[in-house]
């Protein structure tokens, strides 16, 4: 940006100076994209193309995305499509739920003084340090006593917990929602809930989008929790499903070869939704991710 506003010669000088840095960036981009490229290229191959000794980073003679696609979505009664839908369900319900809870609690902590507020907030901050995976085993035992393991709730309910989201919302609400504005609304006769929904929420929007995105990603990418909670493969999210296929394919080396091409395409397809979400929502998360670190 600033380069564009500079005078011509100075700008050209800066450009030249930064050439080595840009080349370095170029190498980094190649490194970060290589796995994507590999997956993209190799999901066009069949077993013969994969194991036939052709180049691993280039297409085989026979490029067959369509064939692999059909195989991917019809294998085992089309279970892959189900996994994708499950992932979407867990991510949307869990992510939206976690965000609603975080927005409300963050606002409550930021804008009200109440008995036990300091203590609760200290506990909340401490809990950010509790490793999520430490909770999986006891939660599993608890849920199995309630009889809800191996149901969608076993995955969705634990996803609702996002202490860091509350922390982010609290920091953001403290600065972004002026007390004067809330007081004005109260004087005008708005109830607390209305003041929250109509005044605070719109002001908190950038932080809300960020927390939503973080929760959705965390849920979409989750592996340990659903792996532990679910045994019915029709309830699996796509991460656990592909892990399952991969285990099968690795276990019977020769018999599993046909599975590899759909595992590779399946990996590619499973990353597309989030990649699109990030590319299109750039303007929100790029600023939002910094919230926790600027304080």
């Amino acid at each position, binding site marked *: 940006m600033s380069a564009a506003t500079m005078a011509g010669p100075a700008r050209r000088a800066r450009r030249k100076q930064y050439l080595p840095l840009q080349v370095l*960036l170029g190498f980094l981009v190649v490194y*970060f994209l290589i796995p994507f490229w590999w997956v993209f290229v190799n999901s066009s191959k069949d077993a013969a193309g994969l194991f036939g000794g052709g180049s*691993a980073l280039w297409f085989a003679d026979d490029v067959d995305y369509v064939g692999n696609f059909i195989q991917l979505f019809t294998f085992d009664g089309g279970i892959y499509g189900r996994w994708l839908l499950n992932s979407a369900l867990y991510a949307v319900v869990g992510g939206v739920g976690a965000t609603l809870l975080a927005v409300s609690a963050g606002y409550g902590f930021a804008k009200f*003084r109440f008995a036990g507020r300091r203590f609760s907030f200290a506990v909340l901050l401490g809990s950010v340090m509790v*490793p999520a995976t430490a909770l999986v*085993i006891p939660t*599993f035992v608890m849920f199995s006593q309630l009889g809800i393991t191996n149901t969608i709730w076993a995955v969705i309910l634990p996803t609702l917990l996002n202490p860091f989201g509350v922390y982010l919302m609290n920091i953001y609400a403290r600065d972004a929602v002026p007390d004067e504005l809330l007081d004005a609304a109260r004087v005008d006769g708005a109830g607390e809930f209305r003041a929250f929904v109509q005044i605070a929420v719109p002001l908190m929007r950038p932080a809300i989008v960020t927390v939503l995105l973080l929760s959705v990603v965390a849920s979409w990418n989750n592996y340990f929790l659903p792996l532990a909670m679910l045994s019915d493969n029709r309830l699996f999210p796509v991460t656990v499903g592909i892990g399952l296929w991969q285990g099968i394919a690795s276990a019977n080396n020769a018999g599993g070869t046909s599975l590899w091409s759909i595992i590779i395409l399946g990996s590619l397809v499973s990353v597309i939704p989030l990649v699109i979400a990030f590319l299109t929502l750039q303007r929100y998360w790029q600023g939002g991710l910094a919230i926790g670190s600027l*304080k």
Partner: protein
Amino acid sequence: MTVHTASTDAPVLPEVRQRRPRRRADSSRHSVTGWLFVAPFAVVFLSLLVAPLLYALYLSMFQKSMIGGTRFVLFGNYLKAFSDPSFLSGVWFVILFSLVLIPLQMIVSLAVALILDQVTTWFSRFSRLMIFLPYAIPAVIGALMWGFLYSKNFGPLAEIFGMFGQTAPDFLSKNLIFFGLLNIVTWQWAGYYMIIIYAALQGIDPSLYEAARIDGASQWQITLRIKVPLITSALVLILVFALIGTLQFFNEPQILRYLAAGTIGPDFTPNMYAYQQAFALANYNYGSAISFALGAVVFICVYIFMFVTRKRGSFL
């Protein structure tokens, strides 16, 4: 704002009245409302964080055996865990891994963020996005992608090294798996950390740079003496996250287990060991003890770290 409420319960002391009553009146009025906003989260917090933690502690105090049934052993499982070579080797591995990974990740993400803060071309903006992209990839898929690249069967390493007449290193072998995993985790997270640092850099007031330049500071001095110190709290935040994440290491080694048969055992990391105990051997008591002990290790490590890097006004 609460002049009318303040006057209704006007205290006797006039000087104090100036400052205190406003808040007092405020707090009594808002006490319930504040809790109402926090309550839904509090319910989830109590039932899905506090309860499982206490329950894990409770479960971890029992031992189940074939003959004796379930009996109370207090800290017996912890004594067992801290003398169990499987658990200890896992803990040792994740600590060692953190000690190498975190500095590496920090250096990479800080360097990239500083470059991106300096170079403002369309290509740098494009790079920023591409370097961040792995964050959107599930750890499982990321590990799988790299597993393919490492693989002797269909990875490109043999091909690339073959061009120079070398044999390719096998990152899935016992000797090199450490580096194989190091690479995967760095690839996955460096971009995310870079974005946080970058955003913090963008938040610095540019007039500071101008002032420094007028004082004759070089670009290097500006970078090291102004930029880096001003983003310390972002760096601390990242370190804490990286530490918490790495000590719970599970997804990547779990996925690579199949590809790297024999290299990664079920007790490779404490979390994998806890998973194996609980879900493969149905030993929930010992599994809970390991989980809880790991949680304690994480908490202590983070606390030590926070204590060492204590800085006023930073995170926590």
